[in-house]
């Protein structure tokens, strides 16, 4: 971290003396998770139900962190009724109208690929050891609109550490639920489902990268990707995959759905960059939802100081 430079993001930096050495942190987690697994295995079904709802109760208690921007959050009603979730239709209000039909409880996530502890895990077991926190991030869509969202979740890096990727794990790939009974966009095959997205392992463990389970002090609304979604604030919204059912660690770079669909329009990295234009529309400015006129789009969505190191060949080489 460069100190002394004025930043619009308050990024909490603990003093070096307080940073737990990584091996200690990992072994402590192992104790916790092993304990949780043993505990879970010994419990009867009714008690498991109780733990299943426990994570929802923890959402309102999420710590308000200094990960925030100066701008006012987008009003909740606007943020949750204007969404891209093409499985439910391509119009902005369709996810809001239809996504409630999606079954999000029970939910399980498959962890696969280059990882020591693969398997299919119940959501409550995935979430159990993680403390939730609130972070207010800018959100910039590739369609040149933006919002400011108070997310609730935990760093993806913490989850990755728990499942112990092997040394061959260079990328992390994600998949969204596919259910054509409730997803008209899937039933009509408007894209080559399932929705797939991926990050490099360095991007995935970056402290800004969040797995979100809620927003606006409440559980994640289905149209915004309940129960578990990815939030990568320096990338276009399409990288923030919703309703995740699979996380796979790979050595080869995974193919992403939008990249496959229109490679000249949707880069694999999808980093917000006002200088790399979408071929069909302007990327240098954006409309904040509900505002008149447009704002200037910032490099890496304003998070350049925190993420530029991930891209040593300069921003335009990673679009």
């Amino acid at each position, binding site marked *: 971290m460069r100190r002394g430079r004025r930043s619009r993001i308050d990024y909490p930096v603990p003093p070096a003396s307080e940073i737990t050495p990584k091996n200690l942190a990992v072994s402590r987690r192992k104790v916790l998770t092993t304990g949780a697994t043993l505990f879970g295995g010994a419990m009867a079904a009714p008690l498991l139900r109780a733990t299943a709802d426990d994570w929802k109760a923890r959402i309102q208690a999420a710590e308000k962190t200094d990960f925030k921007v100066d701008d006012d959050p987008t009003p909740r009603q606007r943020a949750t009724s*204007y969404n891209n979730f093409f499985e439910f239709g*391509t119009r902005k209000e369709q996810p809001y109208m239809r996504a409630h039909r999606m079954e999000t409880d029970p939910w399980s996530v498959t962890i696969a690929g280059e990882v020591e502890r693969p398997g299919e895990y119940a959501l409550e077991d995935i979430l159990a050891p993680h403390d939730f926190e609130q972070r207010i991030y800018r959100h910039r869509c590739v369609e040149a609109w933006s919002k400011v969202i108070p997310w609730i979740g935990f760093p993806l890096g913490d989850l990755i550490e728990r499942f112990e990727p092997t040394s061959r794990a260079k990328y992390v790939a994600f998949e969204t639920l596919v259910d054509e009974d409730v997803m008209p966009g899937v039933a009509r095959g408007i894209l080559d489902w399932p929705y797939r997205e991926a990050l490099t392992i360095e991007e995935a463990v970056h402290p800004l990268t969040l797995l979100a389970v809620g927003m606006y002090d409440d559980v994640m609304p289905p149209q915004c990707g309940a129960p578990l979604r990815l939030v990568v604030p320096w990338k276009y919204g399409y990288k923030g995959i919703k309703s995740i059912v699979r996380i796979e660690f790979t050595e080869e770079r995974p193919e992403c759905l939008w990249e496959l669909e229109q490679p000249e329009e949707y880069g694999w990295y999808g980093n917000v960059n006002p200088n790399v234009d979408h071929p*069909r*529309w302007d990327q240098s400015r954006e*409309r904040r939802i509900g505002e*008149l*006129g*447009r704002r200037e789009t910032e490099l890496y969505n304003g998070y350049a100081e925190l993420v530029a190191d991930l891209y040593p060949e300069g921003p335009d080489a990673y679009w």
Partner: protein
Amino acid sequence: MTTRRIWIRLYRWLALMAAVAPAVWLAWRAWAGRLGADPVETLLHTTGSVAFVLLLATLALGPVARLAGYGWLAAPRRWLGILTCLWAAGHFGVWLGLDQFFAWGFAWQEFQGRAYLWWGAGALVILLMLGVTSTDGWQRRLGPGVWTGLHRLSYVAAVAALIHIHLQTRADYLLVYVYTGGLAVLIAARLAAALGLGWRKRIS
């Protein structure tokens, strides 16, 4: 004869009201604060869609009247054409005034290298030209040949507007296909009429 005139006049007013109705609806939603999460986008998309559908409807009146054999069915054509022009102008006004907020430099910058804007602007220029020359006076001044030829440009405007829509579509092209199909039928009908193909009936 007079009752017939009254009916035709009534029909024309009904068509006009149908073309104005979406504006009343938008105004009510704006007043009630029900323009959705992004009012600018709602206004932009609604004005654009109404303009395009109205253009197709205007172009359809002629062939429908000929097919049905009732010339009076085409009576509201001029009014609908003018309304199409107004909706398209409103669409551009929303873009320039609310989306760009009169940032002229940026608006111009956005035009550079944005094909969809040029197709839209081309369609608008044609529609404005046809709107201005839609009066009896201009019809007389230009003479029937020139005037009719000029107003055939409405098909060019429709194609340009369709490309304008197509270039902004992501993933779901159903509506684009429906619009393309509709316009293709209208152009085919126009060509068939021009070639004097069989189904043309005498207009009474």
